């Protein structure tokens, strides 16, 4: 089986982000640390486990973005992906999910992947749509919020459980090739092994310029980013640590939560 895992690089914490008044977009400051989207760590781990069950399997990690995303692809290789594919896109402002998805679809279309896996969402934007868009553009079956995967080697199909409301699961049997987006908690992502760290250090990434791919015209734009309306914020409690604790104790008594 040939598996493509789509990985997004996200800022480690939103605390270092700022708004750029000239572009109206979010900027990263020198203290911004980037890492792999946690949901995609689960996607990668699931692919690696499928490879362990079926040793003929290869796992390719792919990411779309500027130069800095190469560090996250290295991390994917350190965790065990066979190679890293960087779809280089210089733009660091609003990138439409359909641009990212069509870049992935365009790359994957002729490369014979049996399975494309990605996380159910990105932690930063939480749009929950890249995987589904890739599947729709390539006209492949897809399943979202997957919490169990079983590759049935006897008939080549994929059995998955989707998590839906109230903890209920729906079991599906999918023809391959297919696209799945995995929910967190499906597995425990591994740490890099020393041998993979050494291999990743010397292995080059495959670099593809986004201009060389078939990109669907954008269907929406971002007209601005704002800090949320501060008027809807709650009351910040002032004082020392102990004063705040005493204040909260007082509130709990006042509102009759405590006798």
């Amino acid at each position: 089986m040939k598996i493509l895992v789509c990985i997004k690089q996200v800022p480690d914490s939103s605390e270092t982000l700022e708004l750029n008044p000239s572009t109206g977009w979010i900027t990263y400051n020198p203290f911004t640390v980037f890492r792999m989207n946690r949901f995609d760590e689960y996607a990668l781990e699931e692919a690696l486990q499928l490879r362990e069950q079926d040793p003929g399997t290869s796992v390719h990690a792919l990411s779309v973005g500027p130069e800095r995303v190469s560090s996250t692809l290295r991390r994917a290789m350190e965790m065990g992906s066979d190679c890293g594919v960087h779809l280089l896109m210089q733009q660091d402002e609003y990138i439409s999910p359909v641009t990212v998805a069509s870049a992935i679809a365009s790359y994957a279309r002729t490369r014979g992947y049996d399975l494309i896996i990605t996380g159910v969402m990105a932690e930063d934007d939480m749009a929950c749509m890249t995987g589904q868009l890739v599947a729709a553009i390539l006209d492949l079956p897809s399943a979202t919020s997957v919490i169990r995967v079983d590759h049935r080697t006897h008939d080549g199909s994929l059995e998955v459980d989707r998590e839906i409301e109230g903890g209920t699961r729906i079991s599906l049997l999918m023809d391959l090739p297919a696209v799945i987006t995995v929910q967190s908690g499906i597995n425990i992502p591994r740490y890099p092994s020393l041998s993979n760290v050494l291999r990743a250090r010397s292995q080059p990434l495959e670099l593809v310029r986004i201009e060389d791919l078939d990109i669907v015209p954008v269907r929406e734009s971002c007209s601005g980013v704002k800090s949320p309306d501060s008027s809807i914020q709650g009351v910040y409690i002032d004082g020392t640590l102990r004063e705040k604790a005493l204040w909260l104790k007082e509130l709990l008594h006042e509102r009759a939560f405590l006798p």
Partner: protein
Amino acid sequence: MDREAFIVAELQQGRITQETLELVSFARGYAGGRLPAVLLTGRNIGEQAAELSEKTGCAIYQIQGDHLEVYSLEAYCAAIAEVVSERPSALVILPHSSMGSDLAPRLAVKMEAACITAVETVQGKTFIRSVCSGRYTAEIVPIAQSVVITVLPGACPPHTPESCPPGPITKVQATPRPGRTRILGIKEPLHRDSAVKEAEVIVSAGRGVGKKENLSLIRELAAFFPHSAVGASRPLCDMGWLEYGRMWESTGQTVTPKLYIACGISGAIQHVAGIRGAQLVVAINTDPEAAIFRISHFCIVEDLTTFIPVLLEELKKG
């Protein structure tokens, strides 16, 4: 351009969900008070179609077929597209549920429409959604003729029935096509933990607890209140620190305690959507700009691992 608004209704155990009625409100807000048309998909859904028509006055498309009894992406997408894809300019509104977020992108690609998910509000023709873990809001403007959106549960008050003539019901028979995905079965959860659903006070833990041992602080604080429960954000359940029954993110469930104390929770929008029914929200977080503070009544900027021990000390004094 004026887009014709459609909402995709959702049924759970045969009942019309609260989110469906929220979508009616959302659509009216978008269309200057005009009612949207409702797309109701399923098998034997005559009763629900009549109920929706009476409750909302909306025109209902009752799209039915034996193959539509349980949600399936390919079947539902084809059935809904049959009604909407002929329209030159449509706005299709789905709930941001497991169905809505599964279906919206595929429907959008089929309709060559813009796809905007987890929308919270609309201003004019601009859709507003949270980005960067809720720290900012982005204004998204569609360029394409048609638009498919998902709306976060709880973002809009539900449509309240008013005296209105029932809307017309159009029956559409959907044709099954061979699909590449088969439903094997539905697995109900082994046990539903009702503790957080029924609690009057929920003390909830997020990543800010740092270490599993620190959960004892959360438990100890919760124990001060009668009828209390410990809640958790999804990452804590994923790490196995607390059971999945203690979270409600991305499960479409909501909790309605009288008091909700959020400890080290950043306020991911899925978590926040689930606590919309809480009467009083107090949050403890080290980041003064954490999204959780936007929906809290009282904000305490402290590290919970130092704050809660002092609070417990004071509470023990009685």
